């Protein structure tokens, strides 16, 4: 456990030394807040709160898909990674450290969205609900972490960047993150429950306000978690087998 913290600390150090990497994952959701949420839903307290929660979901998704997808793929290219495997520790501390660092960065990338929501819109949240959303963020990070790991362990870094970019926009739009709950264009309402982004957003909406989640979206979220965990586990073992067996 202590080693996991050491690994997390050094991974954060490596990332923070290149600040633009942190900036990148925070930029999209913050920009979306300013261009879509502030002008259209800024006045209405309920609408703005839900919209901010959607952007937080968006942010969690992009932060995780990018940092695991691209980060893991790039690490696999580095000879440092095999070297750490010769140290007297199993792969677990490094992996746990990566997840801890990922979660820390995810929270970091949420700050601009939350600040914009609190200052430029009418979005309001009770302290209890805020704590609840902090926990919910950790929960909804799970499917996107797994998605990122699946991408990172199965693709070379150049391909991982492209796939991460291709994947995250349709997931955001298709999941209805850029519309108020229940008010997305018709076909999106039809497909969104089948996307992991929707189930995640539903949890966030329920955490910040008076919203009852749609069971289908939650069930599908569970299916996605199982699916993505299987995929990530398969990609991890295949990669280990190819490089270290």
């Amino acid at each position, binding site marked *: 456990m*202590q*080693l996991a913290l*050491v690994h997390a600390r*050094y991974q954060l*150090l*490596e990332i923070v*030394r*290149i600040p633009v990497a942190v900036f990148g994952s925070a930029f999209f959701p913050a920009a979306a807040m300013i261009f879509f949420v502030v002008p259209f839903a800024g006045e209405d307290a309920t609408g703005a709160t839900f919209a901010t929660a959607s952007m937080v979901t968006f942010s969690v998704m992009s932060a995780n898909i990018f940092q695991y997808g691209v980060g893991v793929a790039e690490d696999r290219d*580095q*000879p*440092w*990674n*095999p*070297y750490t*495997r*010769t*140290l*007297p*520790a*199993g792969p677990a501390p490094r992996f746990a450290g990566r997840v801890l660092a990922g979660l820390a960065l995810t929270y970091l990338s949420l700050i601009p969205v939350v600040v914009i929501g609190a200052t430029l819109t009418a979005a309001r949240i009770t302290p209890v609900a805020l704590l609840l959303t902090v926990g919910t963020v950790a929960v909804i990070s799970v499917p996107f972490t797994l998605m990122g790991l699946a991408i990172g362990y199965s693709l070379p870094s150049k391909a991982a960047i492209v796939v991460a970019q291709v994947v995250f926009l349709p997931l955001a739009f298709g999941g209805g993150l850029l519309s108020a709950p229940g008010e997305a264009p018709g076909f999106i309402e039809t497909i969104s429950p089948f996307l992991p982004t929707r189930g995640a957003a539903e949890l966030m909406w329920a955490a910040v306000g008076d919203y009852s989640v749609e069971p289908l979206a939650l069930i599908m979220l569970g299916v996605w978690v199982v699916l993505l965990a299987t995929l990530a586990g398969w990609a991890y073992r295949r990669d280990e087998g190819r490089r*270290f*067996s």
Partner: protein
Amino acid sequence: MILARADQASRRYGDVLALDRVDLDVRAGELVGLLGPNGAGKSTLMNLLVGLRRPSSGRVELFGGDPRDPASRRQIGVTPQETGLPGTLRVGEVVDFVSAHYPDPVPRAELLNRFGLGDLARRQTGGLSGGQRRRLAVALAFVGRPRLVLLDEPTTGLDVAARHTLWDAIRAFHDDGGTVLLSSHYLEEVETLARRVVVIGQGRVLADDTVDAVRGIVGVRRVSLVADELPELPGVVRTERIDGRLHLLTSDADQLVRALVTTGTAFADLEVRPTSLEEAFLAITGADGPATSGEPMGEDPTTREQPTTAAAGGQPTPA
């Protein structure tokens, strides 16, 4: 006590057999040089011993255990490839990170001073010179007070001064009772540091002997000339004809030339050159087998197939 052992270890990558039933014992207190040309299987053997790879067949052991078990690796030190150091981390941070994995690490300042890196603790590794990065990489192998260090070509590409700094550090560790397994394709480096040499070629152990014994079969020369037909000549290890020239590899060029002249054979354009280590290995261990004639080149028949040469091109001689 045997610290590292390979027992009939083979490793296959797809169709390529990188290691072929290798036996190796490294005993406590030894400084063993692993010598062979590029692609001979040295790195593969190292990777098996540090637990990065599993043998396709046979066994490898570290301190009597499986190298893939982290506990077996507690008393070894390994060097990362210097290109692999995380460029944004500072020198001191890299040392601290590795230290965190060991119960009683060498204090950072002491380690860095030992490798001439004392002033650089706050420098990011991405800003170091190639020699400094290499020294840091080797220093990392000693962080955890190991009993056995495995160094895979630690000085390749270094200038003379940097190479000597590293040699001194490795020797000091050995003098304090440490055990070293060091791979190199420089015979000279192995000669300088090691007492025992294991020669590897095409995935097999070709010789496992003292430096002196290996040095005794050094000195393979390439005698090339233009001639139609040659009589039987003494000491020829291998003969090949390339572009109309005959190339004879021999352990005694002087005797060969004397014999050649004595026979009265017509020849032209005689040339005598040292072979590189790699050339000697490839020629003698070539898959098509040596076109041997004449007498065995060594006094010991078991060393007959293990020639090597100090003339491996271009490396500096020790001061």
